[in-house]
């Protein structure tokens, strides 16, 4: 390789294009420095610093400051900056901000150090942003593993609690297993593609998404590449918790600290779908004949499994996890539809945003309701919530209602878009499954509302001795954040303009 080619490659390293990610990474480092520099009494300001930088980046991103690279590839083809990538950046930034907010509620209850939590959170968010924009399997895998390793630590963060560590171990073993499977898939793809690329006389790289897509266009029946693609998708399915890779979800969601559960539910799932959309629509699209049945079977099984197993749950964190599985199923329905109906990709993102708002609202309430025993939050802890803390009760109703897809709320619009897309894609039987799933989900979501609102639900008889403790009153930050989330959920149900025009839903 001559110096010129090296120079040419080095020139494509446009660091400004990933300024938000770098800013995040640098502020993550700054947090550690601050911990050393600042006197102990001032340490409580460190989370504020994390908040401030994230808010700044979020505002810059929403303002479109970094959108000048849209449509370009940088870093010698490692990254591609697309409109969707930008949407993903904003999404992860927003989610990370809200997880920070949850952490300020939950972390002080434990004896765990805080600065490291925020550091890892910020670094993982940066990696998530890179992951959504990666255009090359090496970049993809490295970013994905950074995220995964970060999550291993975050899930087991409340290590005083054995349940948390158990969750961490389960996530670790299954996560590593899925990574290994995905890696093998990547290797197979590289083997199949790289050979042809070389024989064709090109100097293309067998890891690049574009090269893989080209190869698949020419050889859609290549067995090796198809198998590789399926293995990679299996790894992604683990991230989104799709059937049959959902086994880890309830345990890990229950054991992880609430902010981390929220982070897993929202960011990790969204990352999975961002990657899945890129892979399915741009890279593996020539394999439609295989993908459509696989994806739609997976979607149907995920919806059925998620809803049925959520029916009997009394633990709210497991309930969120298993109902999250069913949401993954609806989203998979959207991804499947996106293969034939292009605007469905936007609908998937719309759904993810509504899911973010609603889930974060619910997790916010859970953070206040959950006492020191983070993992043991049951439905009966919500009794009298609407009477004792009407504000939290209201936010819970809005959040859960939106997750259930009840009409005036944003979640319903998300489901509507997906269903219309599915109908246009002629996925009738899948649509029937999804509709059945929605009806079933009403039952368990309604049970939660019932627990919070309908008093004297339990049959007449001796009442339990100790009534559930009244949850702490939210601080003003909590009130503002939760109000914003609930209002956004309500308003998005009535008026979708800002989001739809930004997502270019056509």
């Amino acid at each position, binding site marked *: 390789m001559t110096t010129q080619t090296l120079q040419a490659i080095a020139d494509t390293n446009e660091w400004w294009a990933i300024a938000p990610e770098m800013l995040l990474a640098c502020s993550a480092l700054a947090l550690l420095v601050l911990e050393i520099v600042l006197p102990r009494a001032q340490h409580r300001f460190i989370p504020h610093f994390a908040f401030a930088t994230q808010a700044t980046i979020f505002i810059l991103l929403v303002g479109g400051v970094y959108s000048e690279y849209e449509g370009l590839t940088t870093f010698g083809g490692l990254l591609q900056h697309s409109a969707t990538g930008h949407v993903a950046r904003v999404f992860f930034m927003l989610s990370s901000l809200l997880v920070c907010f949850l952490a300020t509620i939950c972390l002080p209850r434990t004896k765990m150090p805080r600065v490291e939590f925020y550091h890892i959170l910020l670094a993982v968010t940066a990696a998530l942003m890179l992951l959504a924009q990666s255009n090359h399997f090496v970049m993809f895998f490295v970013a994905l593993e950074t995220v995964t390793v970060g999550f291993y630590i975050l899930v087991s963060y409340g290590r005083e609690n054995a349940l948390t560590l158990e969750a961490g171990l389960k996530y670790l073993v299954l996560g590593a297993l899925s990574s290994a499977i995905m890696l093998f898939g990547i290797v197979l793809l590289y083997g199949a593609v790289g050979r042809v690329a070389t024989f064709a006389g090109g100097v293309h790289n067998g890891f690049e998404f574009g090269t893989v897509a080209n190869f698949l266009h020419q050889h859609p029946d290549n067995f090796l590449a198809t198998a590789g693609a399926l293995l990679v998708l299996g790894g992604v399915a683990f991230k989104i918790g799709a059937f049959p890779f959902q086994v880890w979800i309830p345990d890990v969601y229950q054991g992880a600290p609430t902010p981390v559960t929220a982070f897993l539910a929202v960011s990790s799932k969204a990352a999975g779908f961002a990657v899945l959309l890129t892979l399915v629509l741009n890279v593996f699209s020539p394999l439609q004949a295989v993908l459509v049945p696989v994806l739609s079977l997976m979607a149907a099984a995920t919806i059925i499994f998620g809803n049925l197993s959520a029916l009997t749950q009394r633990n709210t964190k497991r309930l969120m996890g298993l109902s999250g599985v069913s949401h993954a199923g609806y989203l998979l329905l959207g991804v499947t539809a996106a293969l034939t109906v292009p*605007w469905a990709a936007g609908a998937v993102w719309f759904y993810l945003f509504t899911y973010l708002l609603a889930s974060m609202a619910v997790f916010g309430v859970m953070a206040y309701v959950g006492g020191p025993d983070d993992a043991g939050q049951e439905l009966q802890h919500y009794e009298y919530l609407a009477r004792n803390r009407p504000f939290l009760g209201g936010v819970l109703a809005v959040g859960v209602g939106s997750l259930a897809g009840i009409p005036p709320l944003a979640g319903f619009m998300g489901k509507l878009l997906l*269903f*219309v897309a599915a*109908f246009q894609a002629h996925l009738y039987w899948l649509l029937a499954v999804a*509709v059945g799933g929605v009806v079933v989900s009403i*039952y368990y979501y309604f049970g939660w509302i019932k627990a919070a609102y309908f*008093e004297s639900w339990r049959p007449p008889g001796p009442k339990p001795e100790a009534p559930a403790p009244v949850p702490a009153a939210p601080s003003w930050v909590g009130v503002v954040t939760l109000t914003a989330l609930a209002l956004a959920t309500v308003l998005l149900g009535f008026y*979708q303009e800002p989001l*739809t025009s930004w997502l270019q*839903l056509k």
Partner: protein
Amino acid sequence: MPSNAQLLQLAIATPLGAALVIALGLPKRFATKLAAVAFTVPALIALWLWAQFPAEGASHYQFLSTHDTGLAAGLGISLKLGLNGISLPMFLLAAIVGLAAGLYALRSGAERLKLYLTLLLIMHGGLLGVFASVDIFFFYFFHELALIPTFIMVGIWGGRDRNYAAMKLTIYLTVGAMLSLIGLIALYVKSGAHSFDLMALKEAIAHQGLAAATQKNIFGLLMFGFGILVSLWPLHTWAPLGYGAAPSSAAMLHAGVLKKFGLYGLIQIALPLLPAGAAWWAWKLALLAGVGNVLVVGFVTIAQRDLKQMLGYSSVMHMGYCFLGLACLSVVGTGGVVLLMVAHGLSVALLFMLATSVHHRTHTFDLAEMGGLAQKTPVLAGFFVAATMASIGLPGFANFWGELTIFVALWKFSPGLTAVAVAGVVISAIYGLRAAARIFFGPPSEQLAKVTAEHPPADLGWLERLPALILLAALLFFGFYPKALSQPVDQTLNPAPVERILPVHPSPPRT
């Protein structure tokens, strides 16, 4: 002076806005005043719009306005509001019953009154929105908006079986709503109109038509989806249970107005857009409604001992007439259904309200434990008897015209079913009059004598009389001057292409 279209928007926005303000933490004494205003404004606007509705040549929507909520470009969903001759009477009905229910709620002294008013206001706003929507997506959307508070109200303020009732109501109505949603999506996709606007859909379908098989499937989805919501037999079991448990204002709004959503949807959407589907399903629908809703449920109603359960079943039974009218697939029958929907809405709301008033005085809904209340509360008795007469369909009340028109249309469709329907009138006379007699006349039961000795029952106060008066006045007005209703309905049904689109009514199957 705002334009009529803006007034229409205002009528829907007022209750919803008031609900938001109360939910955000308005103090209670302001909340009740704001709620009173928010219930009154739509009624006044509805009356004004009714007066403004052109007397002739108004076959199309009036007072139109369109807002893009962000889905117009992508999906063709936009908030398009307007009224035609069919929706105007329904809108008026919603406004009047909403006013009565609201006033009744204000004096009910319910626990957690602010939450109660908020939910009732949302429900009211949703109801007004349903009948003012030209866009079929928003038509559905507003229906759900009105439906959700019902579940919560049943669950919090409901009667004995509230938890079971709330759950059953939720599951049944969600299934119905999902089926109809899929039907509407199917209509949207298959029509190729790329719009949920009813007018655009009509145009697109008139232009290119829909295959008969498609029509059949979509009509089936809509018929059963809407049918569950209207309590079509045998999917009606949620209704008596739900109404039995629901607090009075919610029952008034739901049984009086919200339940008509399905019928209204079939009239406005399914019949004109899917004529071949309608023709295929007409006889099946007529048999289900005639035998199931009218006869079976009629006999079940007679057997009821609980006043509210009886009212719930009777409302299911009256929906049977509406389905029969629809199945005629004729202009006369459809017009009759609209008249009956309005009349039944008014009378059933009045009955549910008075039933609660009776309960306040007797502390029971059990008909066997009542009696002799007329001597102590003559005004209440007068209202109740009048409402019962209206519900049976006595001349002089609006219900008479609705039922008469339906019977006329039904005679052409099938004389046999007409006989069934007329038998239904006799049945409803039996249970209606018997209930009135049990409550108000004859000797009081021992238990009641004890209760009334402890709490001497007072007659209806003015705050209770006012909503009752409003409802009864409307019933009588339309009873003596049915043209006020039939004129706009006629304008929309007759000159419009309905006659052309509606198929020649199918001959009854030969045996």
